[in-house]
């Protein structure tokens, strides 16, 4: 098996003839980097300064897709309270909530055997000799239809690609917004 250069673990993969990590690294690398037809003066100037390589673009895309999986974007509003609780001797478990003694025991026992992250579960599935079909084999292949292009700023169909980062835009106004806001700012 080939490991994705961006991530050491797969979230899903294996589609007969190809191996794809959850973040589509292989797919992205296959995409032609430049498709745009016209360039504005501002773009040319920018392109001379810096152009993101496809590896960085892939990393950036992966981060965007990962963000779509997130449960929360803000801090836990009770984060400080949990800390306080932990300092008190009667709540010395690492559970978030104070519970009865009995429950705690049950929980601890459970934690050892069944507490697994999603990645661990997927890895177990890969190592197990479970016959397909399984979680790994039931994923969808690529659509044969060509990818549609939408402006990263306004969401309408777009004809142009930013030379620097590969984002799409539909008009000079949106390009301006893009350059002023996101273009190379996410890549730190």
């Amino acid at each position: 098996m080939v490991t994705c250069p961006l991530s050491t673990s797969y979230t899903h993969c294996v589609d007969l003839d190809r191996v794809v990590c959850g973040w589509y690294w292989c797919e992205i690398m296959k995409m032609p980097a430049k498709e745009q037809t016209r360039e504005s003066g501002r773009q040319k100037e920018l392109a001379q300064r810096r152009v993101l390589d496809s590896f960085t673009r892939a990393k950036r895309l992966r981060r965007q897709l990962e963000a779509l999986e997130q449960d929360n974007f803000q801090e836990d509003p009770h984060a400080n309270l949990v800390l306080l609780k932990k300092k008190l001797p009667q709540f010395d478990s690492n559970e978030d909530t104070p519970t009865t003694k009995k429950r705690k025991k049950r929980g601890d026992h459970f934690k050892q055997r069944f507490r697994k992250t999603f990645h661990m579960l997927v890895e177990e599935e890969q190592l197990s000799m479970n016959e397909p079909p399984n979680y790994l084999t039931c994923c969808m292949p690529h659509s044969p239809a060509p990818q549609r292009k939408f402006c990263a700023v306004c969401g309408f169909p777009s004809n142009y690609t930013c030379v620097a980062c590969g984002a799409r835009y539909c008009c000079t106004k949106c390009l301006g917004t893009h350059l002023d806001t996101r273009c190379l700012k996410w890549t730190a």
Partner: protein
Amino acid sequence: MAAPTVILDNGAYHVKIGLASDKDPRHIPNCISKSKSERRKQFIGNQIEDCRDLSALYYMLPFQKGYLVNWDVQRQVWDYMFGKELLGLECPDTTAVVTEPYFNFSSIQEAMNEIFFEEYQFKALLRINAGTLSAHKRKSENPEHRCCLIVDSGYSFTHIAPYYNSQKVAEAIFRVNVGGKLLTNHLKEIISYRQLHVMDETYVMNQVKEDVCYVSSQFYKDMEIAKLKGKENTVCREYVLPDFHTVKRGFVKEDGSKQKPNEQIVRMNNERFAVPEILFHPSDISIQEKGISEAIVHSISATPKEMHPHLYRNIVLTGGNCAFPGVKERVEKDVRSLAPVEYDVQVTLPPNPVTYAWEGGKTMTESKEFSKLTVSKKQYEEEGQNICFDKFDV
């Protein structure tokens, strides 16, 4: 009196739970939420209904990518639902029907058996895929159909699952990695970039999504309409966000009404249909996979050829995302254009696509075969995990 049976459709977003004798299930958010306004309290499941300020809710969810990984949270939600506050179950006298996602990991399956038999001590258990319950329901309504294709589009992902005589055709089940959570997060992301910072407002933006998003059957035409100004733009809606003081729940602003001071408005234009469109074109946000309609054709083509006409004729849409207006028409249109011309294409949207699986569970408990499908606590004590792995096909 017969022993009670509880049906627990354990979704990653909502649990649909009720006794087999109930007419409808209750919908309980499958999470623990924290509000920034109530510092001392955590809200389990639907306790959140008592919370006045639903802005910037913080969620703790038992599921990750559609699979149960956070047992601490899950058990608090179950404890609450089984307990006096909600159903008041006497577990040792009760049979439980519990749903799980397709291709559930064996470690999770083991944990499920252990919890339901050893911790809660249920009298008997049936663990089953929600789609199988839906297929059962469909079969009971239309016994003349041998085959059906269940589309189950939920919070974490979408599965396409063909059934023959209520048995799933496992090698033809496929997963599209797009679900309601991704759609809501994407909506939050684009609104935050284009208009107003709403990244923390999952609860509110999910409501916006449910209130105004729809699936278009004329995507590029709607894009053109959304570009028009004024009255000609029939797509655009102005949505008033709740502030949880004067506005308790968000709503669509009526045409021509003036903006009140302090009212926060989100302009939902192409977002209304471009967001659910990801179900049909995951590649629009660079997820390189086939969308639902293509996946239906893909899945059917993986079944034996004799089944094809029967599956095309009996496509059933279930799960929360199928509640978007326009889903049925779109699936019908797409699949019609992709399927071989000689086949009839028929798509069914049940009156309530969210509770369809639960209703199927209810129907199943009423069948003569039901007790043969379950594993009793006694059997579990004698034969352990093995009998569960033999009997439950999830």
